[in-house]
């Protein structure tokens, strides 16, 4: 369980997160929406302890992340898997090596065991034949799929985190990514999707949080989200209102 208690985070004298408080169970399917620069990605980094709150507490299963050293934080981080925006694949490693990264770092699997698991993960994202390509040889959609395969390797993860997973992709590739995110949650893992794509959020999540200028202005279910009276959220949804009314 992730708990934020009045979390503030500043970057270069500017408050990025302003007093965020919420609790998310690791089996929940959550979408964090908001315009660009609203602090969505920062929330993911705070959850992973990649950024440290300037005040307030970020807790995982009741443990304050600020009280942990890097070794203990690493153990917490491996309770999650993350796909950063645009994949964040390691440039110097091939597709196969990127997907094998977790196994090489954290398991004692033999070479052939790793190869077998990598092959299966690449099959899951339909990229078996691209195993030997380097990241710069991949399209944007392929990079996200490799990043998802790499994240699925984290066997102990209880929750998957996605940062703008479909941003900049064509509708076909965006659909493929959405299906992969849904499939990855079938084993009981929850997920948090950070996005500004409303229809991605609606097709994936059951809980919606709306963030603007570092403040969580809405946190609730689908119907409440669609019919919220929060002015900033209504303004955010207005361009899509015609389509949303047809849902």
């Amino acid at each position: 369980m992730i708990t934020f208690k009045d979390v503030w985070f500043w970057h270069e004298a500017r408050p990025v997160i302003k007093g965020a408080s919420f609790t998310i169970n690791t089996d929940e399917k959550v979408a964090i929406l908001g315009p660009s620069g609203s602090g969505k990605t920062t929330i993911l980094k705070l959850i992973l302890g990649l950024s440290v709150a300037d005040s307030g507490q970020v807790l995982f299963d009741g443990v304050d992340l600020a009280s942990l050293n890097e070794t203990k934080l690493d153990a917490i981080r491996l309770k999650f898997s993350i796909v950063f925006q645009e994949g964040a694949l390691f440039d110097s490693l091939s597709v196969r090596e990127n997907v094998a990264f977790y196994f090489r770092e954290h398991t004692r699997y033999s070479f052939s065991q790793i190869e077998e698991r990598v092959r299966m993960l690449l099959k899951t994202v339909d990229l078996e034949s691209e195993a030997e390509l380097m990241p710069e040889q991949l399209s944007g959609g392929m990079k996200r799929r490799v990043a998802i395969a790499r994240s699925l390797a984290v066997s102990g993860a209880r929750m998957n985190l996605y940062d703008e997973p479909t941003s900049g992709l064509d509708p076909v590739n965006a659909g493929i990514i959405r299906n992969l995110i849904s499939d990855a949650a079938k084993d009981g893992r929850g997920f948090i999707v950070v996005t500004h794509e409303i229809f991605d959020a609606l097709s994936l999540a059951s809980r919606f949080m709306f963030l603007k200028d570092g403040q969580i202005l809405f946190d609730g279910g689908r119907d409440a989200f669609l019919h919220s009276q929060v002015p900033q959220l209504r303004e955010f949804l207005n361009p899509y209102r015609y389509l949303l009314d047809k849902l």
Partner: protein
Amino acid sequence: MGAFSKPFYAQEIVEQMNHAGPGTLLIALITTFVVGMALSIQVLNQFEGLGLESEVGRVIGVSVIREISPITLALVFAGRVGSGISAELAAMVQREQIDTLRAFGVSPIKKLVTPRILSSLIMLPSLTFIGDFAAIIGGFLITTVQYHSDPELYWSSIRAIMDLKNTIFGVSKPFVFGYLIATISCHVGMRSQGGSLGLKNAATKSYVLSTVTVMITDFLITKVIWIFFP
């Protein structure tokens, strides 16, 4: 000292050594060889009229081993390897690859920084050692071919300077410079911000900081060695 605790990334160290060493060798050979030739012209022109030709090899050897080769190769290393390290790490920061490492429970310090420091600690002294020879041979060619000096005189004066003090100069400086260049370059790269301008700034900043630090440290090491070995 956490940077040098387990796990060790031997493959990364070998890869970094391969980049820093063989990749820089040709530049190291050319620069030190040419500097050795230029130095010998200067020395010969000063010594010729004074009847000190027998001391030419000695002066060239001492200058090369104590100052010219360590400094020249530190500058080459800072430009080719150090700036590359900064730009590479800065790109990894910007593309969230450093965050990805940490999210996967892997220390970027142990995985990226330590191999680059260890590689520099090994490769800059090695390159300097090779550069010493290249500069001395450059000096030899000018001395014997252009100025027709006795080759044996040159080599005997070079052999005469192979003592403890010169060995300490020759080993300590590149070792310290290698550590400083790698540490500065990694630090600047890991703390970079902001797009392609950030990459440019990281490469430039690491080179400038490295060269200034190397120059100041060179003076300090020289001073310290002279205190202990007057």
